[in-house]
């Protein structure tokens, strides 16, 4: 029997209450308020900043995916950029113009190519998963790194699909029920895309949160904490590592399908070699900065990482020795790239639980105010 006691929000009488989606009243109101603020953001913020925030929302989908795999299930992957690429190319192929320079199926209905991208990336994840079952920890990290290198090579060479090196191909055009979201109308392109990304992100986040608090999520945690022990307790390692890879790749695929929609164009170099590795590292930075094994943390981290270029482009006005020209040193681009490294190291050294950890401390402080614990 489950009853709530008035005035005792943390007193649970049933397990289901403890595991509830939003287990306290303030959380329910808080999340609602956050969603309302996020939805009203396009009315308050200039379009150029909105575009960056929109990219942050898309990256957050991918970050949630990586967090399911690395944060919840403990499988370190440096290959996230590869699955993002698979999603991006699947979406572009499904939605592409059949008579164009690059391959296309001409399926313009948006939900089809978003889900298609997720599914194809998930299949790619399922193919990689058996390797992960055999390998652990850093071995897995290096093998998934190989995925980025080999994938980058294939994308560069497969000119029919990707348009080839330095040329690239068009991203899918987001059309739903005949309305093209990239055409300015009553609302601008940035506003409409932002809302699209927000809706997809909310669906993805709710889904991920539900996975995390289900049987699958508990199995993931067991595998992460000690996979041999989990196996002894009856958690099927092969099955759950496979599920982790498939889910994470699905999220990466959805992220990839939307990532280049705002720019309308992408090149295969973004996914291979140094750039591809940097993309993977960015995703790792997102979940470490945001908070490992939290969905809300992934979103915070992704938005922060997306804002980083903007933040560093503002730096020259505060720090005059940093140049905004790419020809001088140190310039904002170098500062921006180094910031990923600095943030990763700083957060791991001083706040291992990330932004979520900071929020957690603030919350605990005010919850028990005026007592310090």
């Amino acid at each position, binding site marked *: 029997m489950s009853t709530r006691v008035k005035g005792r929000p943390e007193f649970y009488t049933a397990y289901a209450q403890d595991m509830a989606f939003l287990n306290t009243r303030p959380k329910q109101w808080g999340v609602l308020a956050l969603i309302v603020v996020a939805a009203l953001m396009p009315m308050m913020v200039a379009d150029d900043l909105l575009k960056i925030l929109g990219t942050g929302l898309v990256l957050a989908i991918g970050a949630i995916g990586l967090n399911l795999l690395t944060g919840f299930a*403990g499988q*370190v992957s440096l290959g996230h950029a590869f699955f993002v690429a698979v999603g991006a190319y699947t979406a572009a192929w499904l939605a592409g113009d059949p008579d164009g320079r690059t391959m296309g199926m001409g399926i313009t209905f948006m939900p089809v190519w978003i889900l298609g991208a997720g599914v194809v990336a998930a299949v790619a994840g399922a193919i990689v998963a058996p*390797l992960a079952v*055999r*390998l*652990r*920890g*850093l*071995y897995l*990290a*290096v*093998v998934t*790194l*190989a995925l980025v*290198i*080999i994938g980058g*090579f294939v994308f*560069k*060479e497969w000119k029919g699909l990707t348009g080839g090196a330095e040329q690239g191909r068009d991203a899918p055009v987001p059309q739903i029920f005949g309305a093209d979201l990239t055409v300015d109308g009553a609302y601008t392109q940035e506003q409409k895309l932002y809302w699209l990304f927000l809706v997809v992100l909310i669906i993805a986040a709710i889904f991920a949160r539900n996975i995390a608090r289900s049987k699958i999520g508990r199995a993931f945690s067991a595998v992460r904490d*000690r996979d*041999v*022990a989990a196996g*002894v307790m009856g958690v099927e390692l092969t099955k759950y590592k496979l599920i982790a890879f498939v889910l994470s790749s699905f999220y990466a695929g959805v992220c990839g399908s939307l990532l280049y929609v705002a720019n309308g164009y992408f090149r295969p170099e973004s996914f291979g*070699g*140094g750039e591809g*590795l*940097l993309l993977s*590292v960015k995703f*790792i930075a997102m979940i*470490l900065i945001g908070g490992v094994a939290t969905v809300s943390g992934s979103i915070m981290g992704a938005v922060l990482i997306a804002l980083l270029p903007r933040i560093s482009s503002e730096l020259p006005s505060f720090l005059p020795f940093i140049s905004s020209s790419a020809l001088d*040193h*140190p310039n904002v681009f*170098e500062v921006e*790239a*180094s910031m*990923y*490294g*600095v*943030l*990763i*190291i700083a957060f*791991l*050294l001083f706040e*291992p639980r990330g932004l979520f950890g900071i929020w957690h401390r603030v919350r605990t402080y005010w919850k028990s105010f005026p007592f310090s614990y």
Partner: protein
Amino acid sequence: MTEMLSAVSAGLGQGSIYALLALGFVIIYKAMGVISFAQPALMMAGALLVSYWSPELGFWPAVILGGLAIAAVALVVERLAIRPMVGKAVFVIAIITIGVDIIVRQITGAFVGTDPRSIGDPWGLERWNVGGVVIQQRHAAAFVAAAVIVALVAAFFRYTSIGLAMRAAALDQEAAMAQGVSVGVVFAVSWAMAGFLAAIAGVFAAAGNSIDQNLWVVGLAALPVIILGGLDSLLGAVVGGLVIGVVEELARNYHSDLFPGIATNTGALAPYVVMLLVLLVRPYVLFGTKEVERV
């Protein structure tokens, strides 16, 4: 046949570079159980320092100084970023080394600039022709240097007391501490050695070539080497490095015969493909210690 032997000689040269890098990885791994992803950046930084110093000091003094300077950088990195994390999950430390890699690479890249820099090595693209087999001098030099350094490293572990301490700490950290081994010193020496080896590898990777923003990608290819050779085997690092180097050069040489339709050379891909193929057959390959699993 002579063409193949030429490719093999180039492969041994390239493999020597990988072997030096892989030795650094393995030394750090044996000391603290972590893969240091900072090695590629340290390698590039080493080559860069030598390119600045060799016109003034001469090539060889610049190489030694560059190696020592990178060893010092590695020491600082170890002390500031790695030491506070000892005892945390290895994944976390590995990610920190990725952060270090990004920072070092950005700083190095700023000094490389857009113009490719030359390292001022005495070999350039000079070559010997032995009965039709073309041997590039820089490859021979890399091979000899790697052989000497590997012998020195082996002697260091075998005959010095700190080498003994490092072997003891690698075998069982707590037992070593109980015997009075300072694990902190072991960590510091491992990082310094790895930094020195990375710098030397960088010198040979840049010899007869130029230093540009992408030199560190060579360092990445040492990762398949250590996976192939086993993370904790010095012998595996050397043998794995040479094998991967030879396979890579053979693939590069015969690329146009094997894959006429593919424009980009598959040589750079070979290390990763070899690694994946071998891993499919048996994990913890060649010389690595098979992990004993306990709950």
